[in-house]
């Protein structure tokens, strides 16, 4: 059936009804939560809630229905699949390259190869430059991108990631500017700081995915960060290596050698971690093998494997083969990022896996954990921290600027 006209009869699509009140009181309603009595129908003159619950009765009833084996069939959907499109994995990849390059820059500096370090810093900057546009394009309301920086919220990986990206870009630009201006010490300092931030920039994406309700991501929480760091390191090293080649650094130069080893080592790490993770994921690993995500994973593994094989045959075939290997790593890294996002979408739609996760039975380790066994720490009541007037004013200003930008950009 063709798509129906779903234009709202009233108001603006997606715009919630106005929250503005026109006057003081609402006429003819029970106000002051007069309606908040639990029921006007099932009052004391009914037997609706006549019995007095015994202590522990309800908790026991709840426990009984929520533990034990999964009922069959389950009625999904349980969770929503991520809405992210191609921009996000591409961003992950660019961010990874940038982060990896910042590591390389730091290592070059540490090793005393200032020239390569400067190249690495340029690669980092070049890699990070597409990131903000990609992120912005991915937003549902791109004109409001500034709101990402409206507050500082350490518990949200997306928020900290956005700040990290801003810091990285600023420092990266500063470092390159310092290089261009011939201020190597400043460039080194900025580069070193950027490597520290890069450590987060390259791994937070894994944290971000892990901190969701998607089984394949959430259940990989200890692996996603390391895997993403590995990919970042490998692709950063590969990118820097290719950049150095392009910049005329000769074959056999220790930095090229080191980068070659680094990319290979990191890729091996990535493959190893991924294999380990897949084995322990159990039922939740299904999207890693099946469907679009599975195909992407196989393509990525094939590319990485080919790269590794090319490394082994480098001697007989010459250094150019190694360039191909680096390119394959880069491409493989990109495919990995796509694959992980696709796997998340498939996993969220895998109702059984989600339900199993809720029953604590999705991964092998989970089977041992039952609800109620792990006593949790009670939370101490604590007032949230108000950022004070300055923070509030800043946040409000950012919001308004966002709206102004949006209004200006709207056709």
């Amino acid at each position, binding site marked *: 059936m063709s798509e129906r006209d779903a234009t709202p009869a009233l108001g603006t699509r997606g715009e919630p009804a106005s929250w503005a009140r026109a006057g003081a009181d609402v006429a003819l309603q029970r106000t002051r939560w007069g309606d908040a009595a639990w029921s006007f*129908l099932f009052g004391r003159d*009914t037997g609706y809630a006549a019995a007095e619950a015994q202590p522990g009765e309800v908790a026991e009833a709840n426990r009984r229905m929520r533990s034990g084996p999964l009922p069959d069939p389950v009625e999904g959907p349980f969770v929503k699949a991520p809405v992210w499109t191609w921009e996000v994995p591409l961003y992950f990849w660019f961010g990874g390259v940038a982060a990896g390059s910042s590591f390389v820059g730091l290592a070059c500096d540490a090793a005393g190869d200032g020239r390569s370090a400067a190249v690495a810093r340029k690669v980092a900057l070049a890699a990070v430059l597409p990131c903000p546009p990609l992120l912005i394009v991915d937003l549902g309301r791109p004109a409001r991108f500034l709101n990402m920086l409206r507050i500082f919220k350490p518990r949200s990986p997306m928020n900290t990631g956005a700040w990290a990206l801003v810091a990285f870009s600023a420092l990266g630009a500063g470092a390159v500017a310092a290089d261009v201006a011939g201020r190597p010490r400043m460039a080194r300092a900025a580069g070193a700081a950027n490597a520290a931030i890069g450590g987060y920039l390259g791994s937070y994406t894994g944290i971000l995915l892990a901190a969701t309700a998607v089984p394949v991501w959430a259940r990989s929480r200890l692996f996603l960060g390391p895997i993403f760091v590995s990919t970042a390191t490998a692709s950063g090293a590969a990118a820097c290596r290719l950049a150095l080649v392009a910049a005329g650094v000769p074959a056999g130069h220790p930095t090229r050698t080191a980068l070659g080893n680094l990319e290979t080592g990191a890729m091996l790490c990535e493959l190893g971690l991924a294999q380990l993770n897949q084995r322990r994921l159990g039922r939740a690993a299904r999207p890693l093998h099946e469907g679009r995500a599975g195909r992407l994973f196989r393509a990525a593994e094939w590319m990485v494997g080919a790269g590794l094989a090319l490394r082994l045959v480098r001697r007989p075939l010459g250094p150019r083969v190694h360039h191909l290997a680096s390119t394959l790593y880069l491409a493989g890294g990109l495919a990995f990022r796509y694959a992980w996002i696709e796997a998340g979408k498939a996993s969220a739609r895998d109702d059984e896996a989600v339900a199993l996760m809720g029953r604590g039975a999705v991964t092998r380790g989970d089977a041992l954990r039952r609800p109620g066994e792990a006593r949790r720490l009670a939370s101490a009541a604590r007032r949230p921290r108000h950022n004070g007037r300055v923070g509030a004013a800043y946040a409000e200003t950012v919001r308004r600027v966002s709206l102004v930008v949006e209004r200006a950009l709207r056709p």
Partner: protein
Amino acid sequence: MPGLGATFGRGGATGFQQDLQHADCILIEGSSMAEAHPVGFRWVMKAKERGAKVIHVDPRFGRTSQLADKYVPIRAGSDIAFLGGLIRHVIETEGYFRDYVVNYTNAPTILREDFQDTEDLGGLFSGFDPETATYDTSTWSYAEGRGGGEGDAQTHTSMAYEERTGAGMDVSGVPRDDTLRHPRCVFQVLRRHFSRYTPETVERICGISREDFLEVADALVANSGRERTTAFCYAVGWTQHTAGVQIIRTAAILQLLLGNVGRPGGGIMALRGHASIQGSTDIPTLFDILPGYLQMPRANEDGQTLADYVEESGRDRGWWAFYETYVVSLLKAWFGDAATKRNDFGFGHLPKLTGNHSHFSTMLRALDGGVEGLFLMGQNPAVGSQHAGLQRRALASLKWLVVRDLNEIESATFWRDSPEVESGELRTQDVQTEVFLMPAASHVEKAGTFTNTQRLLQWRDQALEPPGDARSELWFMHHLAKRVRAHYANSRRRRDWPIRKLTWDYPEVGETGEPDVEAVAKEINGYDVATGEHVPAFTALKSDGSTACGCWIYSGYFKDGVNQARRRDPGDLDAPGGWVSPEWGWAWPVNRRILYNRASADPDGRPWSERKRYVWWDEEAGAWTGYDVPDFPVDKRPDYTAPPDGLAMDAISGDDPFIMMPDGRGWLFAPSGLLDGPLPTHYEPFESPLENLLYPDLHMNPAAVKWQRPENPYNPTGDPRYPVVATSFRLTEHHTAGAMSRNVPWLAELQPEMFAEVDPALAADRGIEDGGWMVIETERGEVEARARVTPRIRPLRLDGRVVHQVALPWHWGYTGDYPGDTTNDLGALSGDPNVNIQESKAFSCNVRAGRRARPATARLSGVRLDQRIGPADDDPPAEYPSEIT
């Protein structure tokens, strides 16, 4: 509903919805209350949480069934067999409320000797004329009394009947046997009549297991009597049958036997489907009655005078003795000063009936070219009327059509996109119907009253002006009247007397010239002609022409010039009797919320029990008192005995709670008022795949109305081509023909497509898949629907044979964003003899997988409409006596 009227005296629901909370048991049958009346069901839920047992009897396991304590599947159209079985059970196990039955019903009354029952005549009562398929009802009357209800079918084919039972009847001196042992007393006749309705028979006819049957029977008996009451709820699942009135009668008899009428938590709740459907029969836009259930005059050989009319229609005893008062007041309201005693108040100018001019007859006449113009005001027969394909062809035969609605409904666009146009049977350029589609005002854009299912009039204030050229029907009628009256202003012809003399001086208000609705309301309420003051109630009306009143039963709704329907004080709901809320709106008659509430007290005027206290005799005050307005002369002592020659209300004794009846009693046996029998009998639906187990020779209701025409073919009984029983139903998410819901996206998305519910076994047999397409076909047409394969609709084992049922919602049509096939394309025109309601709740059909190959009604496009009889200039067709066979 005549089913109620012929039993209790008035056709309306006996109680009110909030009162259901006091029931100890609620039987819902012929209705999916939770789906069609969700908010009314609120009170059923409350009763349930107060300990009531809720039973749902329905062909389809719907949302109501899920919430009920007990669900009983039944074959559609076999309700009388089930209810009759319950009656037999109650009598045989002596589960009836004896004190109530002896004192408040006609159980002790002795019948004539020549009355013969269906058990004697193979399914017919005495007096049947096979030639005309009608009954002479004279043998049905009480012994030694004068029977009422003579006259042919045509005079009775009317809803008017519900209020006129016992017209012309004389019940004085009728013998009674309070021991209920006399072989000809109503109780024994009833017992014999239902003696064959054993649980086994019920199982064979209805598919209800013995255990289920006994569980229901025990629940009803256990929850009736002095201390407890059971309520019944029904809707069109009972009415839309060729024996619909008798189904309701069966329930009414059962409730009388159990002693549940007139008491809190008891009665029969008729659930109406439209905001003011009760109102549109009270103030009828119906062919056969005038406002207040007064009868439309009938053509008569000698011409009829007002006195003749009153003589024929009124009666001596009970409330209908004031018939003349009400007619004269109505004529005064219409013709004002021109209505005088000398000219019979203009009575002779009223148009007169000669036959059946109901909707179906009219549309058939239109099909034959006998109707030039049609007004459709908020009505969509192209989807909503039975045999919709025929309705659309009839629309195409009109010269002009005025449609007033909120949006472009199917009935206004049939010339463009109906299945008949699609099939090529009608060609747009050949359809000569001129169509005016007028924008109407919505419910918040005009002021006025609706009468809801519990006879409650509630006033709506106007909240905003209608958009653009949208106008209320009040405006439309007013401005049409002005134009037409101007045209006839100087006419001297006899036929133009009524239109010239018609009182039409409603003041206009606002920029659009909307007539003042309160002025119309005043006329309906009634006023003193001399002073112009509102009358307080119909008791103040006079038969001498000094009062005018547009609808006597509504008299008092503007009492003292105060809009009683606009009262909005619910009162303290937690106080004793607080649930009655008498200050909220205004209920007819005279603001009574439970009818016949005198029966909530014993013959001595004391409540039957403290638990069921409602209205009682206060000896100190010398008056009836209680939570409600007593449905009884307020100062008539319970020990008052009517003199044998008493007239009007004097003929009603102090322990006769049914004051509309000439004998003041509830009628287990209806000596008059019904055209198809004094007692209900199981007949098969008009179109049924099964033979009648009880009366094999008779099959269906012998008095049912058929329209035998080639374009209205019927599925033959037991035809193996149509082995499946179909029933139609309503969804919560949609409203009737969909004009008010398919165009409301919030509702339409909830149920986007036409579907049919089919059981897994039938689906497997026919290769139908859930969510896939299926076709349902009858002789009239075939419609396609998405299949909802579900165990909620169950195959039934009937007399050794498995019968499958399909359930069809009927909300879709061919226009809008959410189109779908129309269930009503499947149905045939048929009619209950008493009210002409069609049988849409049970008919035979066949189903198959896939989609239909041609437009829904194409199979009838080959039928030559060779009966076309164009209107002759000097001898227009008067009626269709041949149609009623």
